[in-house]
């Protein structure tokens, strides 16, 4: 040992051992913490309550859409030092209150601060003055004009989305190829395709739910209105009562009726099915070749993100060819929100170009910001090309005095529930009269 360490080494070892002993004794003899032991919360417990929809849970798949939103919310939480509390409602079945019904109640009763709203509720609540004007937000400046237009009620920007929601026909290209069918451009094409499928043993060629069947109607109703040259004049004429919504809607409803009559759509199940949850399994199982859904469903594993076949998303058939239907869900803030300032700040951050870039890249959707663009997946290319060419119809338009998205949905449900086309048109006329205050 002497040879290994020497006197100097021994001295060092002694010092180390002594130091270790002192440390051990100090550790053993250390007093418990002194003073107030409660850890004070630094954030001050600032909270913003967010109310939004939630699909039924699936343990095997991530909700990408929600994940993207969460990422932007985390950005806001981090920057503002607050917590965004999520609240949600999902109807257990079609007989229960819908999300929109509950949203209306909650906004009217000032239950939350921030809401994710569907187009019809945006218009209703905007007209009721229950939503804050968001045009003052710094990042609202970046929104595309079409987005602003669709969400402006009485001159106020009452909602702002994180994505432009585009609806289209989701088709199983493999099945079309199997029967030698071209993807449909016009309503007649679609009818022919359905006929062929039906003849080949496909029980229900078009899978539908109680929410999105209206897009078939919108495409036929407003293809000319939104893609012609007199859009504003025609809307003005509708708002003045010079033209009737029912005139626009009738061909679509009659077409829908024909699809139902020929058994291409199962009205009974469509009336009760929740979105995707109802018709989705058959589509994924390749029993149904056609469904309709929003753009993001093609990216989301919980929806149609991972099919076992070649998926193509195309516009709805119309006289002007395939027609995407653009609808705006958006975030609104209650005018009497308990945490109004924080909520406006959160919204400003989640609508920032940085947040929207993150959101858009994650979800592969069309961004509402003029400054953010990302490539879409191949399946969405046909739909994207149309939107890029400004070929689409709006599913909701706050400039129309008769709310379109919610009302049409309800009237389509009436049709599914057995009402005639004439009865449905009469309902449109009634709504128009009501809107005109007559």
């Amino acid at each position, binding site marked *: *040992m002497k*040879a*290994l360490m020497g006197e100097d080494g021994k001295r060092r070892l002694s010092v180390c051992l002594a130091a270790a002993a002192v440390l051990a004794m100090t550790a053993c003899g250390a007093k418990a913490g002194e003073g107030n032991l409660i850890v004070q919360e630094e954030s001050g*417990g600032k*909270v913003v309550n967010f109310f939004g929809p*939630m*699909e*039924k*849970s*699936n*343990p095997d798949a*991530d*909700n990408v859409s*929600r*994940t993207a939103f*969460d990422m932007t919310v985390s950005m806001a939480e981090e920057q503002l030092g607050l*917590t965004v*509390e*999520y*609240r*949600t*409602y*999902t109807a*257990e079945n079609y007989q*229960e*209150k819908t999300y929109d*019904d*509950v*949203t*209306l*109640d*909650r906004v*009217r*009763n000032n*239950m939350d601060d921030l809401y994710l709203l569907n187009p019809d509720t945006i218009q209703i609540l905007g007209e009721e003055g229950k939503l804050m004007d968001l045009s003052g937000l710094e990042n609202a400046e970046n929104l595309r004009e079409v987005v602003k237009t669709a969400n402006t009620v009485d001159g106020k920007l009452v909602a702002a989305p994180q994505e432009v929601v585009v609806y289209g026909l989701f088709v199983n290209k493999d099945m079309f190829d199997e029967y030698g069918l071209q993807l449909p451009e016009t309503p007649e094409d679609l009818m022919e395709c359905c006929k062929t499928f039906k003849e080949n043993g496909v029980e229900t060629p078009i899978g539908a739910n109680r929410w999105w069947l209206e897009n078939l109607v919108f495409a036929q109703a407003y293809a000319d209105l939104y893609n012609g040259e007199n859009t504003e004049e025609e809307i003005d004429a509708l708002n003045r009562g010079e033209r009737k919504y029912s005139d626009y809607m009738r061909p679509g409803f009659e077409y829908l009726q024909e699809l139902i009559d020929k058994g291409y759509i199962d009205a009974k199940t469509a009336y009760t099915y929740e979105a995707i949850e109802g018709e989705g399994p058959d589509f994924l199982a390749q029993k149904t070749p056609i469904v309709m859904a929003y753009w993001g469903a093609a990216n989301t594993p919980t929806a149609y993100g991972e099919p076992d076949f070649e998926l193509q998303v195309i516009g709805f058939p119309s006289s002007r060819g395939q027609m995407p239907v653009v609808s705006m869900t958006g975030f609104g803030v209650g005018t009497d929100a308990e945490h109004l300032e924080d909520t406006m700040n959160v919204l400003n951050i989640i609508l920032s170009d940085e947040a929207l870039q993150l959101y858009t890249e994650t979800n592969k959707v069309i961004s509402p910001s003029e400054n953010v663009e990302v490539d879409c997946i191949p399946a969405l290319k046909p739909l994207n090309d149309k939107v890029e060419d400004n070929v689409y119809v709006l599913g909701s338009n706050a400039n129309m005095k008769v709310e379109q998205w919610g009302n049409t949905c309800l009237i389509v449900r009436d049709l599914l529930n057995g009402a005639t086309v004439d009865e449905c048109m009469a309902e449109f006329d009634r709504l128009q009269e009501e809107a005109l205050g007559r």
Partner: protein
Amino acid sequence: MLFSIILVFCILGAVVFLLARKISTEMSSSAIHNLNESLTLIRGTVEAILTKKAEFQDLIAREIVRIDDPEEFVRSYDRNRAMVKISLISSGKTEGVSNTGEVFSEEGLDFSAGKTVEGLPVSDSYLNDMGTWAYTIKCPIMKNGREIAWLYAEYIYDAFDEALPDGFYNGNAMLYIMDAKSERLVLKPKGMGERNAGHLNLEDFYRANNILEKGLQAEVEQYIKDGKNIMFYHDIQGENSLIYMWSVNNGALYLIGYVPIDAIQQEGKAVNQNILIVVLVMLIAFFLCCVLYFFNQRQQDRIREEQEREREMHNKQLAEALQAAQIASNSKTMFLSNMSHDIRTPMNAILGFTTLLNKDADNPVKVREYTKKITASGQHLLGLINDVLDVSKIESGKVVLTIGEFTLNDLVSSVDTIIRPMAGAKEQKFHVTVTGIKHEYLAGDETRLNQILINLLSNAVKYTQKGGNIWFRIIGLDQRSSQYEHIRIEVEDDGYGMTPEYLETIFDAFTRAENSTTNKVQGTGLGMAITKNIVELMGGTIEVSSQVDKGSLFRVELELRIPDEQMDKQFWEKNGISHVLAVDDEEDICSGIRLLMKDTGVLMDEAYNGKDAVRLAMDAYGAGNGYDVILMDWKMPGMDGLETAKRIREAISGPVKILFLTSYDGEDLQEEVHHMENTGILAKPFFVTAFKEKIMEMRMESEGKGQEAEAGKCSSLEGLRLLAAEDNEINAEILLELLDMEGAACEIVGNGQMAVERFANAAEGEFDAILMDVQMPVMNGYEATKAIRALNRRDAREIPVIAMTANAFAEDVKEALDAGMNVHIAKPIDMELLKKTINQYVIRKE
């Protein structure tokens, strides 16, 4: 040992494992207990709120009794967060009033489950007009013991949120409030739910958390029906978790959720981690100690082994030293014994013959015989003394080499002069060969070299039987440096040889081969030791191989510096020699001659027999480039040297010199040669210097100088007058007598001082030389010489001073020369040597 350590570690591991497991179990149990308490606390809070609400409603109901217009009271009641709606239905009616202004009926409210709070019925949960989950408690309004109306109050579950904690287990625990009947999740308290799951109802909760076991679901269903608490383990999103369902208000509501096990067992985990760390630290410390111990042990073992080795080595060295000392002691004892014998023997002879001389002083024949024998014995005694003194000098490291320039020719011829007669006396054949030598003019201690060769050769002669052979070879080896001649000297004989045992000690002092054959040979046994020491002193090596009765071979390798030789090319030109023919049947000899003649500028041809020699000579002569000298081996097979020479003479009329090479004394040849013109004899081995001398000699002969008369004159000391400084009277007397016998006059002085004075007072030229002893009283020889040389007279620097001293070592010679003496002669005086030396240095007056 290893087994014990493994056993200890196994026991330690088992103890630590059991301890960790025990702690884990206890902590787990404690954690579950804590979770129980937390849930119970939350339940208590929810139930307390329910109770307080029921009590408050009851209070309002009592208050309403005292109010005149209860319906107006209800209508005017403001909605608040706790009680969002209040309604009243009078007894007997189905509709009533509400603070929302609507007509109120019990329609849509379900009290059928029979759940109560404080005895008041509670409805099932429902989604109210605020878009949130709510429940209604109805309370009877009693007046005078009679039920007059029912008060309905609607409460929202959101109101519980404020009273509940903002999460528990650091937000890792999930908690929802579930309506037991509808199994709808009616409240997700803040900080306690998942963001990415809505959890619509219990079924959705099961699906989201992958709790799909039907049996388990049925069991849970039963518990919920019975209003009991349930807690069970299940994996949720890959984590082992505890799922709990806690009954509130007798099972009307349930607190449901889950918490990962890791989250509730953090303390236990931390304790186990700490135990693990402590164990690891201890293990590391233990292993470090083991490593240190191992290294220490290894170090100690190494030191011990080293000490052991050193001790063994010391012991061995001591044993060897003891053995060597014993051998040395024995050798010296033997040596003294030998010396005693060897000295006494000649001394005995000297003294004996002196006695006889005294007795037969008148008989000149006997006197001559006796003196001859006395001289021989004296010479032998002197040899013994010289050897003893030399070895003592070498052993004490006082030997200094005196480096001078010499030629191998001189060395070989002087050795040959001494050894050949000795060999001849024993009828031995003495063969001398020199091969491969490039330079014969070398620098070294010639005297010592001579000593080496004499030692080796005289031994060879001594230890070889009569008629044997002695080979003396000088071989030129490849030069390691251009400045040094690398030579090997071999002395071989076919004599008695030596035993391997003796070979091991042959170079040790005081040893001498002892056997029946050699013990007749007298000697100190110091010769080989001296030889080896001198060889090593010269940086050389000596080795010996020998076989008994076969002979011995001594090999000495030396490197001798080549002095800056001034090649006397002019000599050859001056003597008109430019073309030489070497004729010898041995090719080696021819090539040796060519090698030696390389730098002379002389063109060399070789012939290996007489015929070729004649042809070459004729050809050269015919071509007008005839040979100036032909070196001709005498003894050649076929046509011998003489015959060849004769043929050449017949064929060529030119003045070609022919030198016969012979290794014999050449007396027969002398006769033959005498009759031939322009011929001479050159002793083998061939040396350039000898060749040159011969050329000179032949030239002088041809110039007709009377060498013989001169030589005869020089051999005598007749007419010389000498001054001798000698303090020993006997020696002085002997000297005086000897010189007198040679016809020289000598004046003796007793010391150096007297010599100086005598010379100083002498007339110039009075003395021809001074013989100077060295060790003298008053002034020694060196000082005296210096003083004489310093005298201010012309002959002081010229007069030869000859040292005659018993200080016979090389350094003594050097000192003598340094002191200014001309030459050194060792005592006892060899009269022939003295005569030769004096004649060499004295300049005869005539």
